[in-house]
């Protein structure tokens, strides 16, 4: 990437995108946004960062830990599914606390659910992209 203007703009933009993705995630329950959109935004930001850094270290690290992360989020999902039953509600029922979180409002299991979606969407997109971008090994049609 040899375009100075693009490089300078992106080095700021990707941080903005990442921060904004968090904002989108948090406000999702009441305003347009949510985990899916936020996750796509975060993936886009990190991919752009890879272009200006000319290295994919973030993505490479992520790729090594991807399956472990998936397993972990599976466990958290399981907790979210089962926990309401243990407390005496129906499966997957949202549990709400009175703890106040900026932007999002009251902290709840629904927010954890949305955050998991956020993380899975972002990491999956990055994983696929990094698989596509791994240098070498390809090119033989």
């Amino acid at each position, binding site marked *: 990437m040899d375009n100075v203007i693009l490089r300078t703009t992106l080095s700021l933009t990707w941080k903005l995108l990442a921060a904004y993705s968090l904002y*989108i995630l948090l406000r*999702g*329950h*009441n*305003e*347009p*946004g*949510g*985990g*899916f*959109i936020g996750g*796509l*935004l975060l*993936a*886009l930001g990190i*991919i752009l960062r890879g272009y200006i850094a000319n290295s994919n270290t973030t993505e490479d690290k992520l*790729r090594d830990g*991807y*399956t472990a992360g*998936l397993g972990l989020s599976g466990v958290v*999902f399981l907790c979210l*599914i089962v926990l309401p*039953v243990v407390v005496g509600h*129906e*499966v*997957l029922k*949202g549990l*709400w606390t009175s703890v106040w979180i900026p932007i999002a*409002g*009251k902290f*709840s299991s*629904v927010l954890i*659910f*949305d955050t*998991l*979606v956020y993380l*899975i*969407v972002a*990491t*999956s*997109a990055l*994983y*696929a*992209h990094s*698989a*596509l*971008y*791994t240098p070498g*090994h*390809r*090119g033989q*049609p």
Partner: protein
Amino acid sequence: METIFWSVAAALASVVTLRGRAFRLAPYLVAGFLLWLSVSLIVTAPASVTHPQTFSWAWSNTFGAALDFRLDGLSRVLVILIGFIGSGVFCYSASYMRPVPGLQGFYTTLTLFTAAMIGLVLADNLIAFFLFWESTSVCSFLLVGTNHQSASTRESARKALFLTVGGGLMLLIGFLMISAHGQSTGLSLSDSLRFSMIGRSIVDSPSFPVIVFCMAVGIATKSAQVPFHIWLPAAMAGPTPVSSFLHSATMVKAGVFLLARLTPSLGGNELWNTSFTIMGSITMVTGAILASAQRDIKKILAYSTIAVLGTLVMLLGIGTDIAIKAAIVYLVAHALYKASLFQIVGNIDYATGSRDIKTLGSLARMLPLTATAAVLSALSKAGAPPLFGFFGKELAYLAKIQLGTVGILLLFMAFLTNVLLVGLALSICYRPFWSKNTITGELNAVPLPMSLVPLVLSVAGLFIGLFPAFFDQYLGTQMASAIAGQDLTMKLKLWHGINFESLVVIALSAATLAIGVLAAVKVKPIISFTSAKLSSVQHCGPNNIYERVISGIPRWASSIVSKLQNGNLKHYITWTLAGTLALLSLPLFHTVDGIRPTLRLDWIEAALFVAISLPVIAALIVSNEFSKLILLGASGFGVVLAFAAFAAPDLALTQLLVEALVLVFVLALFRVVPGVEEKRPGRSTPTAIALGLSLAFGALLLANVPELPNASKIYFLEHSYLEAFGKNVVNVILVDFRALDTFGEAVVVAIAALGCGSLLLANERTS
């Protein structure tokens, strides 16, 4: 009810938590808990059974998948039976199973099976029943495959799994249809899924024949009815405790149990009665004939189990009061004597290493207890008075006599079956123990518990036979009433007094026993004769068909795959589009009549139309790949605008980001794919036209839909803030009301990424 939960939980806990040397206690602990369970159920007053105890845990009302249990006369007897025989089997396995590394897994699976089986007979919810049903199939698969080093064992385990689980799926279809009917008569989702709520009106519904068919397939696969019986003899590859517990006493009875469970609601009509009578009677005769062609005692027992299962299905199919009583006696008696007989064969095998009825002999001196048990069990199987099996045969003959003309045919079939079974039973208890054959080679000493357990089981059969009033009062009457759906008093008698029917029955019984003794004397030539006859027709039997289907699947699959996935991308697209078109065309033909296209575009819609379609048309014209890509992106942004214009900001945002990411991904592809050809020869014009047409029709169809269903929209708008505390309805639907769907989508996204990685990173990993 609590007793059942706690003892099953304690059994599971002891088998899972004990380690090392302490683990040797686990089977005895489990046996103790199971025995406690069945004894405590026997001593609870039968009066409590006329009002069934229920337990309900509605953990998911939305899906109707409540955990409902119902302890009535039918399930009570079966739980007692499972507990009693189960405790015997666990004691037996403690000596029988050699201490190998996988032993804890074996006991855990066996205990899980017991839990699933108890859950199955208690379940009142159809979905819960289905889950327990399939769990028993999976446990059976694992237990048959205990000795999984041998290829033939794996084959047998797989056969058992395929057939029983496949039948279970048919059952699920039937259950869903029952539920749909229930809902159409005004039941709630969770009520429509209850056994106890199935209404008689279902018999008149047009889907009833299909329901009966689904139930019949499920019952036939689980309870080894012809032509699905082939898995049961193969399942004998499992160790003795498994055969004695799962494949004679409990799991194979699950189908019969379901039949009994459904009799009050679905039974009592011609279709139901005829189909199960025919299925059962054919199975009965086939099982008996096949049993008389075996030399391996375990195989003889397996095939005679099939014959008895056929008898049970037939009796419940006949469905008269006497037939139901006969089925109950048969079921309990068979569970006791067959479990014991399998253990006896296990002992013989343990001592001599052989199960061949033609060569075994003179073992009575060495295995006195086993020989005693064998005599008692075999006599019960043969239906000799005063053992429990006698009552079953008497009642079964009586039920058929009362049927009239059809009864005569059934009577003949039953007579043939019984003669063969009596002959085999007598030779099983005589030949290995008293015949003149001598066993060469060293004999293993059989541990005492292994001889005691079958003895206890067979003595239980003798006890009930001597004191039938005990059975009548505490078990039989309640069970008969639960199956018949009305009060039915069980009264077993050795001597029915002098009248025409009872004289005929006694004559038949005596004739069966007499000819059976003759058959037992001539058992060697009978076995040689039938096996020779059968081997000539074997090639068209169901087992052969099964083998051919199973071995044909890989060939069939590879021929299809080579047609569909030949490496040519255009070919893939053609197939995908053809599939889409095929799926679309059916509903189109149905609705094409009522379409009145109305073309009223306001200026926003017209502008959007241009914004979306112009770039696409331009993309078709330009030849440069990058330009095409950019133009497609532009069309995508047109779609974004459309979403925004129709007040769907979430969709617009998502679409926007997806467009951006697609662009990034395709650019990345361009970087790595070495040079794209400028000119591609030959476009698939027919496909393009077909796709265009189908899209146009689809648009016409949608144009005619006045508005999306309002009820759901209003529901979500009203409830999203009140119940889920969210103002963004789309997001609330995603993460709260339809959280399960979103979870599924997250899984899909992850799997897609993993698939991408496994395709693209495969080289990296191998290098």
